[in-house]
């Protein structure tokens, strides 16, 4: 599940809608996999009738495959281009680790973007089937920035059937300090890999 597709010359596209702080943003995202160690991604937000800055990423992964377990360390530099209604260049870096067995999935992602430093954790269960399956995860997200700090947490559900994946998640705000955030955050998306 982590950054599909995993196969050489594979690619995927995804559309995701986020609702938070009384606003909604639609994201168009895509990935091309040169091989499992090197991918390139793009993310384009659309909110309030305008496109935001295009974000390009270069996930570099080191995999380890041991019998009934696969894991990887990943470092992802990202760059936002001045485009749409955002005239700024921005950059970020993410360091993550994920591990997966037939029944358990876990992801830990530490990132820095603009003035924000965050940690995302997804841990949960996998329910494989024949040609389809699902994941039931729990997310904890912590963020600190010049604009305040917050911690959110909530469930994540993932369903896939052949080459299609659906993801829905809700994060409740459980802690905030000097930020203008209030309420929960809901996200739902659908993607396809080829």
């Amino acid at each position: 599940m982590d950054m599909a597709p995993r196969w050489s010359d594979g690619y995927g596209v995804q559309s995701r809608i986020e609702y938070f702080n009384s606003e909604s943003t639609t994201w168009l995202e895509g990935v091309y996999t040169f091989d499992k160690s090197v991918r390139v991604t793009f993310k384009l937000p659309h909110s309030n009738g305008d496109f935001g800055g295009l974000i390009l990423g270069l996930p570099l992964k080191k995999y380890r495959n041991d019998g009934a377990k696969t894991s990887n360390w990943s470092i992802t530099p990202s760059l936002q281009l001045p485009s749409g209604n955002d005239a700024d260049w921005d950059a970020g870096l993410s360091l993550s680790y994920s591990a997966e067995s037939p029944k358990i999935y876990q992801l830990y992602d530490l990132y820095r973007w603009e003035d924000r430093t965050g940690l995302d954790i997804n841990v949960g269960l996998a329910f494989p089937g024949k040609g389809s399956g699902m994941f039931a995860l729990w997310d904890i997200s912590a963020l600190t920035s010049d604009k305040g700090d917050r911690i959110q947490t909530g469930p994540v559900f993932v369903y896939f059937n052949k080459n299609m994946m659906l993801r829905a998640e809700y994060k409740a705000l459980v802690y905030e300090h000097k930020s203008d955030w209030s309420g929960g955050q809901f996200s739902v998306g659908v993607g396809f890999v080829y």
Partner: protein
Amino acid sequence: MRTTIFALFVALTSTLVAAQDYVINVNGMVCEFCSIGVAKKVGGLPFIDREKYDNGVIVDIENQIVTIAVKEDASMEKSALFSAIESGGYNPVAIWKLMPNGERIAQP
């Protein structure tokens, strides 16, 4: 006598060119969504019999096993097969010939 010899010849050559299944143990293959690429890459090999199984391939993530069907008039090429699985994102570690009685014979 000629009939007997001919029947023996047909039976022998039929066995030699019969379609053959192989089983490959693949490390790390635990997610069916992520394993789509293995079936895709292996199914594209020229010696795979796509009339059998699901485009010639069965991916078993519970046991980390890939089963393939090889065409009657073709030979399995291990290096091409292992390269295809690695291109799919995983590590093949061993291969067995699958006999009709279910017995597996390890291949070098």
